[in-house]
């Protein structure tokens, strides 16, 4: 039997992720519903904080900008969220990683394309929610999204998916050395969400902290796409920002490969 074409193998992985996402769409909708609470909480907070001077700027945000950031960042945060790290950890712990090592398909490629397939479905659903959110923001606060900003947002979102995958791929591979890792994933996840601007804009943390966090890859998973859509990135900075994001993708991919190489040698030595 002829071996499947290289692209065909990973297209099947993409299809697997796509079908899984359709099957677990209720979980995704509940995750999105969970975004309602922080949006309500933060909007109420900002209304009170800006109440004495609605036209003022705080942390570099006007009130409409802050509310728009709050809503869109929450939706983006739900969209780029991963979960495959638990499956990777289960494969390592149970030894079923064995079967992927003998298949004509790389485990990294399998996980990456399954993840992308999963995100295609979620992006379709989220696209509808995002349009609705932008419409409500436009009606309530005069928030406007340009066509150019939308295109850049979509491009940055694709980068965000891959970046977030690479970050959690590196974290998941720690499973080669640690046996009980579930809580660690959650700890890393919440810290990364905070460092990505997924809870509050990084500017809230002050100029020093936000300067440091701006250099790290995390902001490109949530804050960067959000600020592109809300028009807060100066046009002359867009290309440079994309370049930095791609740089981090290369670094994280190399780091992941290095960890995989060491981890798989340990896995093979220890056995299932």
């Amino acid at each position, binding site marked *: 039997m002829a071996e499947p074409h290289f692209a065909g193998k990973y297209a099947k992985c993409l299809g697997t992720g796509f079908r899984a996402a359709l099957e677990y769409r209720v979980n995704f909708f509940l995750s999105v519903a*969970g975004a309602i609470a922080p949006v309500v*909480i933060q909007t109420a*907070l900002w209304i009170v904080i800006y109440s004495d001077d609605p036209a003022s700027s705080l942390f570099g945000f006007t009130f409409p900008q802050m509310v728009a950031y709050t809503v869109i960042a929450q939706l983006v945060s739900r969209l780029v969220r991963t979960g495959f790290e638990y499956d990777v950890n289960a494969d390592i712990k149970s030894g079923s990683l064995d079967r992927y090592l003998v298949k004509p398909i790389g485990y990294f490629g399998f996980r990456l394309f399954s993840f992308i397939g999963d995100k295609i479905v979620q992006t379709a659903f989220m696209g509808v929610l995002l349009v609705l959110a932008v419409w409500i923001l436009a009606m309530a606060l005069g928030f406007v999204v340009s066509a150019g900003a939308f295109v850049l947002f979509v491009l940055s979102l694709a980068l965000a998916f891959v970046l977030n995958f690479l970050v959690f791929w590196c974290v998941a591979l720690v499973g080669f050395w640690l046996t009980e890792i579930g809580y660690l994933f959650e*700890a890393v996840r919440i810290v990364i969400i*905070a460092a990505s601007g997924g809870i509050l804009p990084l500017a809230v943390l*002050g100029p020093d902290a936000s300067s440091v966090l701006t250099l790290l890859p995390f902001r490109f998973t949530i804050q960067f796409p959000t600020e592109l859509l809300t028009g807060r990135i100066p046009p002359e900075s867009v290309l440079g920002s994309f370049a930095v994001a791609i740089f981090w993708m290369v670094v994280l991919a190399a780091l992941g490969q290095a960890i995989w190489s060491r981890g798989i040698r340990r896995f093979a030595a220890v056995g299932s």
Partner: protein
Amino acid sequence: MEYRANFITGIMMEAGYLLAKTMYVIVAYSAGKRIGGFSPDEILVFVGSYVALTGFYAGVFAMNLFQLSRLVHDGSFDLILVKPVNTQFLATFRRSDMGAFFFDTIAGIIMVIVGLARSGIAIDLPLVLGWSFFASAGAAVGYALWIIPMTLVFRIVRADAIAGLADTFWDFNNVPMVVYNRIGQAVGVFVIPIFVITNFPALFALGRLPPVWFAWGIAAPVIFGWIASHIWNSAIKQYASGGN
């Protein structure tokens, strides 16, 4: 404590969540203005009370509530039914995460103490007893509020989604309830008394708990505890053993 790695990583997870919660405190201090009539130091007391009670929620009964669906689904709930212990007690308190409980409780209490000290409020025995009482009452109300929707598991079996959604509403206490409008506050205090859980201890400590709310803070755990128990006993009659 048998799984020490789990204990340690559990604490790391709670530390991550604590970081997320304190971001709202950072907003208060960074904004440099009073929020709903409360200074940033007083906001710290609210968030500290929230963190302390999250220790109870996350460490004592959250995992039991999330696992209830699985117990019913695979029939393990039968083993709880046959034991000579109150079923509700056993099902909802059988497991605990002491790492999360102690970490959050201690961190929260420290935040409350720092906030009160910076506000110039003397921490005396009546304040400690009063805060502890309303924190305990809030924990009881929180327990009742989370039990009620989870009883759906006896009817629809897979209620993981409900537990997940209920979990997200805990976060409404991450900020003082004064940021919400009057209708929201009224609903959150008297109808679905989620704000009683963490706001009342803080308001008492700050000396800003109105008499009507003071009385409600005493009555609410009794009323909602009775309602939750009644609904649990009624719902458990719907239980039909699942599993193989």
